[in-house]
């Protein structure tokens, strides 16, 4: 079986020297990584852990979490991984519920979460002294510290990396449990079996056309299903290489990310739409980044990819985006739009691969094509259930069909378009946020009477979270006070983008907050697509008369190099025409940078908003 083969090849065979992870410039080979895997496996086995026992993981460091996660998955232990930055109360509740036999945590978390180390095998992660390491090496002095079996990664130094009587875990054992967003009283731990996992990883490998030459660039968090499964797990399965460039994604690093496509011979870039939107916006001069011999396509996942962004991005960068739809409950993906012409249709999530879908109406009847209803998925990769939450499981899993909670329309060819959401969830830049979870935290503040969180459309992040709060003492509770309070309690992705204060909420007869009424008070952001389209059409119209070319042949990614007839004189003709048409006057610096449609549009927008 593949896990066995992978381990053997890595420890002794042809993969030994091959780079598995390239983490912010530091390279780890298959040999090194999987020998650490074998060591950790030996450690857990020696502590009496058996297949199916749960190991709780919450540590910093990409290498460490990848190592421990893969150790569990390959050895048959169940990994329960939780972001160390998560709200303490919630983490504590989840930890208690998990009943793990072993845990690997950041040292400070034991105290923070109040964990009794004696009740289970506990490894605490302590930073080893980096300074003087070289000096020690030079002196070849044997470590003076006694070998500490409870501190990681020091423990790696005393373990054997031999793989004793390895047998692949049984398909029905739980590979991992991932806690998706949820309230404290109602945590949802998604249980994925070994069968689910490998069935889906095989699907991904096939649908993306990956092999051992594949080099994936995926900068998503390893505590995110899309980060871990379409990261180290998929990479190891393909025997390729995973590249992570930056610890955290920032706008100033976009150039580095784009440059790395060529530099690191990336074949697949895995990114959420929010990252693609930022790349699209701040990439001037880097439009040729994907024109490398190795690059295949971009994989957009975790959130809804706007049609406008999709088209614009593909035109600008002359590359292909594959839009993936999936849930944590389906390991990672399910429907794919773009890897082949048959699957591809812009604006949709494409077609299911290795699974079935159907669209049901409210009363559970299958709907014909082009009618909106809830999307259901059935396949080998659909999860087993929520951990210790039969009620929640029963709600979404019936007869092997997973109720996705998303509203969708399927066309005659079978392409599925996601049209809305039934479940109350907000996806901020690829991260699922339960508004209730955030409200719950806000409500713990002593000065808050009640609060509601609402999702609002956002051009970059897809959606953003707005917190509406009624304070008991409005004079004392300001935005900053509440923000400071929330920062300690919430992960960064779950922080509300804005906080609005109300005297009282509009309420219905049953005392329920009327969200629709509430939303009216701050006005939902309009979809900016239409306005943008009109401005572009007008620019193209004028450009076509200046350059004497067909307006239909022009795209936003065109510039003075790509348009025939866009010479310096025609350029000025266009500038003058734009000035007349929009009744404005451009500055010298502006005219000089207007050598592509994108910057013309940006400058015009600035002028129009000033007017």
């Amino acid at each position, binding site marked *: 079986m593949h896990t066995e083969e992978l381990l053997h090849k890595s420890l002794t065979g042809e993969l030994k020297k091959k780079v598995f992870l390239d983490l912010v410039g530091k390279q780890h080979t298959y040999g090194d990584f999987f020998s650490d895997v074998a060591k950790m496996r030996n450690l857990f086995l020696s502590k009496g852990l058996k297949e199916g026992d749960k190991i709780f993981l919450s540590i910093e460091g990409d290498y460490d979490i990848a190592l421990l996660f893969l150790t569990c998955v390959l050895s048959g232990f169940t990994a329960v991984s939780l972001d160390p930055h998560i709200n303490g109360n919630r983490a504590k509740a989840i930890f208690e519920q998990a009943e793990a036999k072993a845990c690997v945590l950041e040292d400070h978390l034991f105290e923070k979460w109040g964990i009794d180390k004696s009740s289970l095998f506990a490894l605490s992660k302590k930073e080893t002294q980096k300074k003087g390491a070289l000096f020690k090496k030079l002196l070849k002095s044997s470590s003076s510290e006694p070998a500490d079996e409870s501190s990681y990664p020091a423990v790696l130094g005393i373990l054997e990396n031999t793989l004793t009587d390895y047998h692949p875990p049984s398909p029905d054992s739980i590979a991992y449990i991932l806690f998706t967003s949820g309230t404290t009283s109602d945590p949802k731990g998604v249980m994925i079996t070994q069968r689910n996992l490998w069935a889906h990883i095989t699907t991904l490998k096939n649908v993306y056309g990956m092999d051992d030459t594949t080099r994936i660039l995926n900068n998503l968090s390893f505590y995110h299903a899309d980060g871990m499964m379409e990261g180290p797990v998929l990479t190891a399965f393909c025997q390729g290489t995973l590249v992570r460039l930056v610890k955290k994604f920032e706008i100033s690093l976009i150039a580095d990310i784009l440059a790395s496509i*060529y*530099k690191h*011979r990336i074949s697949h870039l895995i990114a959420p739409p929010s990252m693609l939107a930022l790349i699209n916006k701040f990439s001037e001069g880097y439009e040729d980044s994907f024109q490398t011999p190795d690059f295949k396509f971009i994989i957009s996942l975790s959130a809804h990819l706007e049609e406008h962004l999709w088209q614009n991005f593909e035109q600008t960068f002359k590359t292909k985006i594959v839009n993936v739809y999936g849930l944590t409950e389906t390991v990672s993906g399910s429907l794919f739009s773009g890897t082949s012409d048959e699957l591809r249709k812009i604006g949709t999530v494409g077609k299911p691969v290795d699974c079935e879908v159907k669209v049901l109406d409210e009363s559970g009847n299958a709907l014909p094509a082009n009618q909106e209803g809830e999307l259901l998925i059935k396949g080998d990769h659909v999860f087993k259930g929520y951990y210790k939450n039969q009620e929640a499981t029963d709600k979404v899993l019936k007869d092997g069909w997973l109720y996705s909670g998303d509203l969708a329309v399927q066309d005659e060819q079978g392409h599925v378009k996601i049209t809305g959401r039934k479940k109350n969830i907000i996806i901020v830049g690829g991260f699922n946020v339960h508004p209730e979870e955030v409200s719950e935290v806000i409500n713990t503040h002593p000065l808050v009477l009640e609060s509601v969180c609402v999702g609002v459309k956002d051009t970059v992040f897809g959606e953003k979270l707005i917190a509406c709060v009624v304070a008991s003492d409005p004079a004392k509770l300001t935005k900053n006070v509440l923000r400071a309070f929330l920062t300690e309690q919430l992960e960064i992705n779950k922080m509300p983008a804005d906080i609005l204060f109300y005297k009282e909420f509009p309420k219905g007869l049953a005392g329920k907050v009327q969200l629709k009424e509430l939303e009216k008070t701050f006005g939902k952001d309009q979809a900016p697509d239409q306005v943008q389209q009109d401005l572009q059409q007008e620019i193209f119209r004028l450009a076509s008369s200046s350059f004497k070319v067909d307006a239909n042949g022009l795209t936003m990614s065109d510039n003075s190099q790509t348009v025939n007839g866009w010479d310096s*004189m025609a350029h000025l003709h266009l500038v003058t025409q734009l000035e007349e048409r929009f009744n404005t006057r451009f500055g010298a610096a502006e005219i*000089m940078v207007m050598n592509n449609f994108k910057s013309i549009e940006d400058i015009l927008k600035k002028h129009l908003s000033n007017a």
Partner: protein
Amino acid sequence: MELQVFVLLFCIPLVALSWALPESWQRYLGILITTLFLGLYAPESLLILTLTTLFSYYVLKYSTHIAAAMIVVCVVIFSVFVFFKLGLGKTIWIERLLPLGISYYSFRQIHYAMEAYKRKLPAHDLKDYFAYLFFLPTLLIGPIHRFPEFMKDGRRRRWDNSLFSEGLERILYGFVKVIVLGNYLISARGGALMDMLEANGYLWLSTYVDVVRYIANSYIQFAGFSDIAIGLALTMGYRVMENFDSPFRATDISDFWQRWHISLSTWCREYVYFPFYSVTRNYYIGIFFSMLILALWHDITWQYLAWASVHVIGINTWHIYHRSALRVALHRFIIAPVFWGRFITFHFVVLSFVLISGKNGEEIWRTFKILFGFHV
């Protein structure tokens, strides 16, 4: 030629070390080797380059008023450039007419200042800017490559067999162009052909061969040196902009200027033509000034000014014609307009180059008389 071979010799350790040393050392390596090279062959140029680099970097970085800073930098750099172009440098240094590479690095600095004004510069520090101006492959002979591209390539560079091979191929092509085509075929053999024609009494033909030979040689030599520079840059993992794009295939004079010495003509378009246009809103003025600078870049003489004026007139005439009804009417009758476009453009260019190839007015006048059949 000799100097270019020395550049090549300095580039051998530079290229080898650039792949052997870690990424963070790259900038310092480039600066160091170029400093050694300039220190050895042109210390005066090293001094000017270092001072102007520090000046332009700090003025643009710490000024609160970017437009003023840009103007100050451009004026100072351009003045230094003109000072040496006018030969005033001879009063200070006798050995060389011009500090090595000043035509190129002055224009690169002005490019940098203008991009700073447009706020289009990528994030960088002093060593990046130094490395850009101290980039050995293009230091002496261009192309006037651009800072954002340089930064991009610096981020992207990786070892690549085929890219390295491409670089070596370009260097080889460059030397073949300069030595075989330029020095041997066009200069030596072409010269012999010309002498033979003249000796046999074919005065018109020999003059025609001579003027074509002049421009062909200018092109092939310069393109050859550009090839060497581009090839060297490729072996270091940098893709420097092209300088020529088969200029004699141009179908009109405007097209010609997009194919001939591209790094300079685009420079003039971006940093002379557009600024002058945006201020005056008159494209004739824009074209006039860009051709003026283009002429002065080569040499400050009346011959280059005349040459530039001819091109200004040519370009404007072409633009008027291009938008006129005459063109539409003519195109109904002309067979193979592309051929005729190329034919006319080529000869326009050849004739204009007579203005700069002649040693004095008398000789130029004589050449024109012969070519147009007035010579008796």
